[in-house]
């Protein structure tokens, strides 16, 4: 060690510091330290080198805390999942649902929302069974969900899935209404759900749009694009007043294929107007049909259909029987006593000819 490499100003300090390197261990001390070192090395060779106790204790405590935390979190989530509206942990359960929705891939969100809608129904049933009040928000949530389902069934997995979900909701709401008849919210929600079910064509008495189109020609029905206001005889069901009936014709019995005018498909020679002749009123006087000079407004006998008093007769044909499409004037060529178009193969305007009656 030389002081030459340092500034002369500090050379004196350096020379003094060099004395720090002078003390040396005595031979006894050297031997003692060497024996101690060898002893420790031998012990380390026999046993694996342990971590310091503090380090081990730290990891033990940390692991314990983490495990406890995870267990507590899992328990809280489980309890929250079992909670019902009104419980302290219910907001947590809803928050977890929201988080699941936010984290789920877009393709799974629809099924997840359906699942949560079903969970609402389950919660309501549990509340009813326990005799606890059903919060109106939950019912409103169901109604909102149902409206979403109906607006675009395909987005929620198709009509079958939506119909099944709606059936469960309807069943749940019916349970609430039966248990709490004074619960107006539930009653109106039930009505909305049932109406949505009808709109979805899940009622077995109503045809699906697919079933409506292949109607055999000549059996009547409302042509697509034309509104069938009410064709059901009084007392035989149909659309409730004030609601729009989209189609109540039984499947396979009515309707003109889309894009086609209602033409008479009666084979030639089997009735109807002969080719080359205009189909005019051939009903003998006094045997039915509209008297000359009068428009045929209502020919249906009382009690067999027709327009109720006070309603305009748009179509008086009973369901399943052909009638004049709305917007066309019924000149009535029906033979007396029959009052309806002949069934297919028995009459009508030959194909290719426009029915003018």
């Amino acid at each position: 060690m030389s002081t030459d490499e340092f500034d002369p100003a500090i050379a004196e300090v350096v020379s003094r510091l060099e004395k720090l390197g002078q003390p040396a261990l005595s031979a006894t001390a050297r031997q003692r330290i060497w024996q101690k070192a060898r002893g420790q090395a031998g012990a380390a060779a026999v046993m694996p080198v342990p971590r310091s106790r503090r380090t081990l204790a730290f990891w033990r405590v940390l692991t314990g805390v983490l495990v406890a935390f995870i267990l507590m979190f899992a328990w809280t989530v489980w309890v929250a999942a079992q909670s019902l509206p009104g419980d302290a942990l219910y907001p947590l359960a809803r928050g977890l649902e929201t988080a699941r929705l936010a984290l789920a891939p877009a393709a799974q969100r629809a099924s997840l929302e359906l699942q949560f809608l079903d969970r609402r129904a389950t919660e309501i049933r549990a509340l009813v069974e326990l005799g606890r009040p059903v919060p109106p928000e939950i019912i409103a949530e169901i109604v909102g969900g149902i409206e979403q389902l109906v607006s675009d069934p395909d987005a929620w997995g198709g009509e079958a899935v939506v119909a099944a979900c709606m059936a469960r909701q309807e069943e749940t709401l019916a349970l609430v209404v039966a248990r709490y008849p004074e619960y107006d919210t539930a009653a109106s929600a039930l009505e909305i759900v049932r109406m949505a079910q009808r709109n979805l064509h899940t009622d077995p008495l109503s045809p699906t749009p697919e079933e409506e189109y292949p109607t055999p020609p000549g059996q009547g029905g409302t042509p697509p694009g034309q509104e069938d206001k009410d064709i059901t005889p009084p007392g035989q069901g149909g659309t409730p007043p004030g609601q729009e009936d989209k189609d109540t014709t039984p499947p396979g019995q009515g309707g003109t294929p889309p894009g086609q005018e209602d033409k008479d498909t009666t084979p030639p020679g089997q009735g109807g107007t002969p080719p080359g002749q205009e189909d005019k009123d051939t009903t003998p006087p006094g045997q039915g049909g509209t008297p000359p000079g009068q428009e045929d407004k209502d020919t249906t006998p009382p009690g067999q259909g027709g327009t109720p008093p006070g309603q305009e007769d748009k179509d008086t044909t009973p369901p399943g029987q052909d009638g004049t499409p709305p917007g066309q004037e019924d000149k009535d060529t029906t033979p007396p006593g029959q009052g309806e178009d002949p069934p297919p193969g028995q009459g009508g305007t030959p194909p290719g000819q426009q029915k003018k009656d």
Partner: protein
Amino acid sequence: MGPQVQEFDESALIQRAKTGDRVAQGQLYEHYVDAVYRYMLYRTGNHQTAEDLTAEVFSQMLTAIERYEDRGVPFGVWLFRIARARLVDHWRLNKRQQDQVINFSDDVEEFLIGTEAPDLRHEYADLIQALGYLTAAERELILLRFASGMNNQDIAMVVHSNPNAVKSMMYRALRKLRGILSNQEQFYNDVEDDDE
């Protein structure tokens, strides 16, 4: 490195020590023990603690030497890195902060001074006291350089720095130490004047 009183083939000793040759291990110990012990003594301020820590360093040397590879890190640097790590463990276990000013205990002064001529007692005492006023980093550089005899390049490898930074910091520490020692002398002169 250390009191290199004799030339010896360090790499050959290391190769023999790695195979478990006790003689070679002993020779490596003899070569470095004083440097390590002084480093520990001046940093802890307690000769018993310094002895224990020195034993731990060489214990680890014996268990880990078979894994030692000279990849640009000299054996002395490797050994002082172990020493430094043991010192950090010691401070952590004893709740001592590294930047805490060390006040050497009386028994350390006695231990050091007892091995030297009586006329050096006063000088050592002042030097040790002055070292206590440096920061831990400054004190470490000074001790590695003057108590353990390492050059700036080796010191830089021990403290994971670069030689220029070590040199610069060493210079500042020496100037600071000079100021402290000057103040001490001034103080003693004033006291003597007052006595007179």
